[in-house]
């Protein structure tokens, strides 16, 4: 049914085919003028499939023609033909994400040369939905000529796909095995203003690549006006900035209001403001920004109560109101509710209803909600910040930046002129808020990134051309971890083990434990645990059924550790034939479990590629012990020791006092535990925790637990006691160790 890509003749010569004229006849790659491209788009034959265009295509084309980007096609082609690197600025609604890659295809003609055009997106959902839209616009099925590629899901057809939307992380992973990205004729980095970690690294890579590959074209697209930074960065010659292609957005003016005085309670003030708008302002939906799930749910409840009161008191002048929460941990069906229309008036002639969306900052960039006319901005968000000194990931409420505030205000002007109510004074806006949000590279753990960079041959991580360089201590921590995991040798060179680790789209600790797990006869189980750790939280805990949910969780809990509990959950899920009802009855997210299933099979393929056996021990009683030992091999740098009378845990080496996360299922407080994460929210917590034995630490991570380098303290004394006992213990044990070490050497070789 599908055409064989190997037999289909190259389009340029297929014009001799007769009846249908080759639409691209006479086109020379990268010398295409806008009028020619327009002629083909307006034609009757799809130049990429040679099929007649569908009526649907014509309809969509009319809509596309109204996009600001479309009207500037001539300018774009002139600039694109002349320059290797372009910085493009187009506000939301300009159509840049959907149109520019298509324009590039009409000029590059990648399908005639076996090349691809890549367009990166910071988010998986965006990559998927934009690819779908563009496939429709080009009148081709999704996954053939136009496709997408995200972690654990590849929706492309090698040889056919020539326009690929992908997450920035995926392009980075591709660069690992093809540092010249030779498959691509043009690379478009979209949403560069969001400054995600992967986009930042890609900018450094493609800048260097542009010097090596003169045939490669690069477009950096940003939604904000501070493009000068990118222009300067991508100026290939010193002091000559990269050219700028600017397209105005299709936005309406937004009037900004400030408070006269600072607000004593921003949540309360926000609720008050929403109700004030509801009572006094013209119809139009409201978007309120708050910081987290609890705050949002609470505000929704209060707004609803007050609004109902208003409606009862004064049904003639106040319309009905719906309040919809929006945050990332919300199930997708509920996230969809933000697109519901505002409620209808109670009587045909009554006051129209109003929709209020109360959201975290995901509505700031990621999601566009049409119909929003009013924005209420208290000026806060929760931000992830990694600190290398104590190796903690913090998630704390902090003031937003000016850039963020502007972005939020802009959300009010999507459909018509809007208003933005800032719950702080104008003076505080000027003096208290920072200019820009810190790019992700300054806020992240870099272990993963460093391994990827080393794999793709970047040797000098110190002098890498960062747009904004991270703190040196963050790099130091990353190198330290990779060295202890034996992914890098002492000179910073990639080891064979490290090369395999880099192939797994996982944190290095996880990759390591997966690779060594066959030695512990539990690679089947470790694979499951890794898959479960790679998907969103599987536990559901609806607000009105917390007790029932906790009871259900208790039934599945393995008291020795949360990792084992995750394994248990997956196994039960598999035993129950992936039954949706079983998951529902046990308060588990069917979606997350299905995703885990998919991730598991993807990772299994990677394991097969490197001959990593899938085995399970026959000795049931030892299974959990083996698993916990394998966990130690990956996570020995994330160990906490119980000290003091209050059952406090101290992280080894960093001596941070931490508590077990409330979700932890351990039934006791073991002396030694490993943890998957150390997070700082309301308090310092370790999350996903499993009990381990100190002997294992000394045995499987002797380098890290080198007693001569450990700081003096209770942890060291405890380990010394264990070490002494081991030395005095039976010979047979040490023989076992030697055997295992020998085996390890074999697998490495």
């Amino acid at each position, binding site marked *: 049914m599908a055409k064989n890509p190997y037999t289909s003749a190259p389009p340029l010569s297929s014009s001799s085919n007769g009846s249908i004229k080759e639409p691209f006849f006479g086109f020379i790659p990268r010398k295409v003028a806008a009028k020619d491209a327009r002629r083909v788009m307006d034609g009757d034959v799809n130049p990429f499939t040679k099929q007649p265009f569908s009526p649907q295509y014509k309809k969509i084309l009319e809509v596309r023609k109204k996009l600001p980007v479309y009207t500037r096609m001539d300018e774009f082609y002139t600039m694109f033909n002349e320059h290797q690197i372009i910085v493009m600025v187009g506000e939301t609604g300009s159509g840049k994400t959907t149109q520019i890659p298509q324009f590039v295809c009409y000029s590059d003609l990648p399908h005639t040369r076996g090349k691809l055009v890549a367009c990166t997106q910071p988010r998986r959902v965006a990559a998927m939905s934009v690819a779908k839209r563009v496939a429709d616009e080009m009148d081709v099925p999704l996954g053939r000529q136009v496709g997408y590629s995200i972690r654990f899901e590849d929706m492309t057809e090698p040889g056919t796909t020539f326009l690929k939307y992908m997450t920035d992380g995926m392009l980075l992973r591709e660069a690992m095995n093809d540092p010249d990205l030779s498959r691509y004729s043009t690379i478009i980095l979209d949403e560069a203003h969001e400054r995600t970690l992967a986009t930042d690294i890609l900018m450094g890579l493609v800048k260097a690549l542009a010097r090596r590959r003169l045939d490669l074209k690069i477009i950096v697209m940003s939604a904000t006006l501070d493009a000068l930074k990118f222009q300067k960065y991508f100026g290939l010659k010193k002091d000559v900035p990269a050219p700028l292609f600017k397209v105005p957005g299709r936005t309406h003016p937004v009037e900004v209001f400030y408070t006269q005085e*600072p*607000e*004593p*309670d*921003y*949540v*309360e*003030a926000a609720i008050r403001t929403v109700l004030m708008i509801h009572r006094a302002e013209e119809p139009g939906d409201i978007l309120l920004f708050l910081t987290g799930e609890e705050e949002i749910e609470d505000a929704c409840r209060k707004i609803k109560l007050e609004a109902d009161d208003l409606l009862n008191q004064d049904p003639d002048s106040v319309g009905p109101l719906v309040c919809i929460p929006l945050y990332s941990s919300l199930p997708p069906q509920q996230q969809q509710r933000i697109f519901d229309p505002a409620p209808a008036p109670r009587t045909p002639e009554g006051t129209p209803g109003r929709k209020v969306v109360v959201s975290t900052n995901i509505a700031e960039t990621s999601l566009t909600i049409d119909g929003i006319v009013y924005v209420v901005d*208290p*000026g*806060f968000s929760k931000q992830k*910040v990694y*600190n290398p*000194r*104590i190796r*903690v990931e*913090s998630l*704390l*409420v*902090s*003031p937003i930046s000016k850039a963020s505030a502007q972005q939020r205000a802009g959300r009010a002007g999507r459909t018509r002129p809007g208003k933005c109510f800032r*719950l*702080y004074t104008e*003076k505080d*806006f000027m003096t*208290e*808020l920072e200019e820009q949000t*810190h790019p992700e590279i300054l806020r992240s753990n870099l272990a993963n990134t460093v391994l990827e960079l080393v794999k793709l041959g970047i*040797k000098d991580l*110190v*002098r*890498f051309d*960062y747009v904004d*360089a*991270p*703190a*040196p*201590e*963050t790099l*130091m*921590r990353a*190198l*330290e971890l990779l*060295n202890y995991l034996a992914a*890098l040798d*002492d000179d*910073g060179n990639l080891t064979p083990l490290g090369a395999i680790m880099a192939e797994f789209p996982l944190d290095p600790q996880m990759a390591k434990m997966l690779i060594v797990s066959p030695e512990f006869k539990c690679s089947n189980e470790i694979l499951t645990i890794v898959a479960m750790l790679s998907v969103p939280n599987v536990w559901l805990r609806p607000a009105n059924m917390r007790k029932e949910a906790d009871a259900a969780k208790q039934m599945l809990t393995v008291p020795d550790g949360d990792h084992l509990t995750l394994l248990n959950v997956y196994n039960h899920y598999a035993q129950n034939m992936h039954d949706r009802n079983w998951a529902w009855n046990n308060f588990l997210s069917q979606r997350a479990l299905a995703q885990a299933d998919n991730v598991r099979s993807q990772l299994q393929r990677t394991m097969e590629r490197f001959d990593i056996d899938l085995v399970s021990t026959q000795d049931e009683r030892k299974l959990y012990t083996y698993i916990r030992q394998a966990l130690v091999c990956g996570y020995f740098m994330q160990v906490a020791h119980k000290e*003091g009378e*209050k059952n406090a845990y101290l992280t080894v080496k*960093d*001596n*941070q*006092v*931490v*508590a077990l996360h409330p979700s932890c299922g351990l039934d006791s407080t073991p002396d030694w535990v490993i943890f998957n994460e150390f997070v*700082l929210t309301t*308090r*310092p917590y370790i999350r996903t925790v499993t009990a381990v034995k100190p002997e294992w630490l000394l045995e499987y991570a002797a380098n890290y637990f080198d007693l*001569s*380098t450990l700081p003096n303290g209770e942890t060291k004394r405890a380990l010394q006691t264990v070490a002494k006992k081991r030395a005095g213990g039976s010979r047979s044990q040490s023989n076992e160790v030697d055997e295992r070490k020998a085996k390890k050497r074999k697998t490495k070789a």
Partner: protein
Amino acid sequence: MFLFATAAATSSGPKTYSERRKEAEKLAALRNAQHRKKSRRQLELESREEGLRKSLFERAKEEEEAGSGQQNKALAMMMKMGFKPGQTLGPSDEVATKPDTSAAGPSYVLGKRRLSEPQEDEANGMATIASRHRAVPLPLSEWAGKKGIGLGKRAASPSATERLAKMAKMAEDRDHLDFRDRARQEYEERRAEGQLGPAQRTCVTLDEKDGREFNVLWLNPNNPDGFPEGFLDALNDPVLVASIHRNRVDTSLEGRLRARMQADALQPLTSTLDDVESRKDKVTLAKTTYSEEDIKEATQFLRLGPKDRLTLVLEYLRRRYAYCFWCGTEYNDQEDLENNCPGPDEEDHD
């Protein structure tokens, strides 16, 4: 230390007054210290501050000097790539060098605004030259509570409007209780009632020592005689005033009669110019003693339950005098209080 001191004192014959006074002071200090049990939260905070203070380069250096003498491997790798501690990462023509990263100021600010020290952050965090590369990790900063932007720095002393808003919220929260909560609430209210007396007396003592003549938080509806002269009449809430009068200890016939008359008393007609004049005087007089804000605040305060009133009084003591009611200790300052008191709630002191 203390035992040794007393032993020395007793051996040297009879004690002078000043010696005995010093001893008593020491004893008090010791008791004070015993009250200060470190809470879990406190330990967490201290360890975090300690951990964040030192850069990894410093730590590596110390370990090298103290331990095996071998250099930190990760740092060695970076040095091989051309890095020197104190520099930023990035292309060599953009690298900024700072004299010493280890001298970097606090990289962690809890409960305070990170932005309250923007210059410092700028100087430490971003390299001094036009470079945008970072020399030290981003600080971890926490925004305390739900205060809006612009109020971060003023956390220490809430204004009257803030307190009013808070009281309004407390009153509102009480209305949303369900049946079960209400039963528990009643028990807690009775308990709080008992604790409120001593707390308010402490408040009066500390306030008077501080030179304050009046504070809304001193008011106790069960003790109308404790109200300053004429204050009750100034409250324009008859229901509240009546309920307070009912609490008057003076339940003699005379007293009740007086109260009755007061309530029923006819207001003078304000038809003549004189009267208007005199009333004006009265009003301005009242205003000078009790501001409108005081009246408003007092009305709100007295309408609250004992538990909420107790919360407000204790909060005030903590913020203004660094005094913890549960510890029974007046700390030197806010920092001392924060470091040494286990927490603001009674449970923290179990």
